[in-house]
């Protein structure tokens, strides 16, 4: 393969605290993810899956080991440089939606574009397009409090998409939704992956949701216990 993998963790460890209170959240993890993959990460709580997501999402740094992002070492970057990586290449979706309260859907989606320095007119157009992509035309002016949970998560997905990221990182995106809404969200994510070739990495603890992904990575005790690629996602 000529192209470097999008994400490559080499012998990554993450240790919290020191001495007696030392906790090894990640223990020499190797993980490679290529462009266009839809990866589900599962595991019991404390297995290190959230820590892995934080490191992949450039919110945290590995204690040791190497994190290559698009073939470039990203593990040793400082706060500001990692903020730039997040701004330009990453889109986040959270369990609790994390929209700004008392701020319209459109303005929430515009947020990453403001930090990217996109001029105002273009910003609004791109934000509208992103909201349309997730099926929320006509809701641009609504506050999060006026939207259902599923709609709020769609706004969050639009916000993650608006900046034109290379990867969407989803942390339990259906954790606060009922089964019906969860399926809608997962179908939206799967469609983004299938139709637009967007790389998606998702942490979940629900087997049904993980089934939408083409690859399942299971963490146990800070290590990858299983890494299965499915021929056909279902």
């Amino acid at each position, binding site marked *: 393969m000529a192209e470097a993998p999008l994400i490559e963790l080499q012998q990554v460890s993450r240790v919290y605290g020191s001495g007696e209170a030392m906790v090894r959240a990640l223990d020499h993890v190797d993980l490679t993810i290529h462009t266009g993959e839809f990866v589900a990460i599962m595991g019991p709580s404390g297995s290190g899956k959230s820590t892995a997501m934080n490191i992949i999402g450039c919110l945290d740094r590995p204690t040791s080991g190497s994190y290559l992002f698009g073939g470039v070492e990203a593990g040793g970057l400082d706060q500001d440089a990692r*903020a730039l990586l997040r701004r330009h290449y990453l889109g986040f979706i959270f369990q609790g939606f*994390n929209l700004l309260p008392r701020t319209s859907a459109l303005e929430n989606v515009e947020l990453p574009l403001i930090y990217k320095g996109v001029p105002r007119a273009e910003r609004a157009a791109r934000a509208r397009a992103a909201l349309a992509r997730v099926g929320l035309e006509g809701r641009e002016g609504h506050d999060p409090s006026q939207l259902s949970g599923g709609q709020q998560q769609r706004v969050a997905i639009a916000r993650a998409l608006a900046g034109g990221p290379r990867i969407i990182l989803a942390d339990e995106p259906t954790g606060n939704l009922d089964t019906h809404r969860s399926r809608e969200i997962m179908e939206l994510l799967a469609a983004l992956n299938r139709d637009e070739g967007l790389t998606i990495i998702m942490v979940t603890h629900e087997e049904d949701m993980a089934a939408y992904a083409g690859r399942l990575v299971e963490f146990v005790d800070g290590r990858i216990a299983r890494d299965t690629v499915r021929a056909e996602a279902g």
Partner: protein
Amino acid sequence: MLWETFRLALRAIRRNALRSFLTVLGVVIGVAAVIAMVTVGQGSSAQVSSDIESLGTNVLMLRPGRQRMGPPSGDAARPFREADAVALAELPEVAVAAPVANSSQTVVFGNQNHLAAITGSTSDYLTVGSWEILRGRSFTPTEERSGAAVCIIGETVRQMLFGNTDPTGSLIRIRTVSCEVIGLLAAKGAAAFGQDQDDVVIMPLRTLQRRLSGNTDVPLIMLALEDGVSSTAGIRAVETLMRERRRLAPDEDNDFSITDTKQIASMLTGVNSVLTGLLSSVAAVSLLVGGIGIMNIMLVSVTERTREIGIRMAIGAQGRQVLMQFLVEAVVLSVIGGLIGIILGLVLAAVASHFMAIPFSPDPLVVLLAFVFSAVVGVVFGYVPARRAARLDPIEALRRE
């Protein structure tokens, strides 16, 4: 980006309108107090200076009695006589010297009456006091010598007795004296400390002495020095002559006092600026307290919006952008407070100036300084909360409920 940050700040302030208002109240009061104090202070200084000018420059006032502080002593001071003024006027340093006696009397015209200060003097009094005759004429030497029943009245007295009609030629009654109004003085307005200078009736000294006071005492001599004569030289000449005339031995102290209006002017201006400075610095302290209020609320705001900060950081905001967001918010808050304070302060100063009858002339420099100072308060007291926000760990911030 800065414009975006500014809009963001305005929105955050509007979102919590009541709290924002209470937050800036300290700055509002501080700025308003400083502006009002300084403006009123400068106005009253200007008033004092113009009063002194209207008195005429280089005017000396001679009064019987020792010049000293403390309670009056038992030894009665000999009053002056009219001859003293005549002798003083002959000094080469002195331009004119006016003997002055006063009496407070009710003045009656028709069915109107009014209590006025009656001044007995000569036409030189008008020169020394920089009075101008608006209508009619001053006393003739004959009238002064014979103690004729004539008088010149001020604008206030005219208003009380005659309204807007021409008073000259009318007869007014002062106690038993029927007195012809021969002149009307041009209005001067209120003096420092607010007494009305136009509430005055002037008649020849001898008229007042014979018909009203019944003695020949002259309790005050006002004299104007010749142009180019320094106060010091003038005072020395006057002092020498008066000691001679009052036959004081070389080792005796003066039994009269000489006041230079310039001294009064500088003393009043000095007192004024000390007071203004003092009050303004007290007001400035409240600005400081206002700044602490802003810091307090910004710290609360950062804590409340930890999650928002986390979201922004996850989306790609760098620490300095978060810092700017909160710093700009603090500065916008305090500048809004400053602007409200400036308006409020100017209104207060205008109202106070109106009631104190002093000129209202706001100093643009003071307004600018107050504005800049309120912005500085925002930067100084907004920095700590903003830095706290910028240093948050995004993972921790996102986890916060």
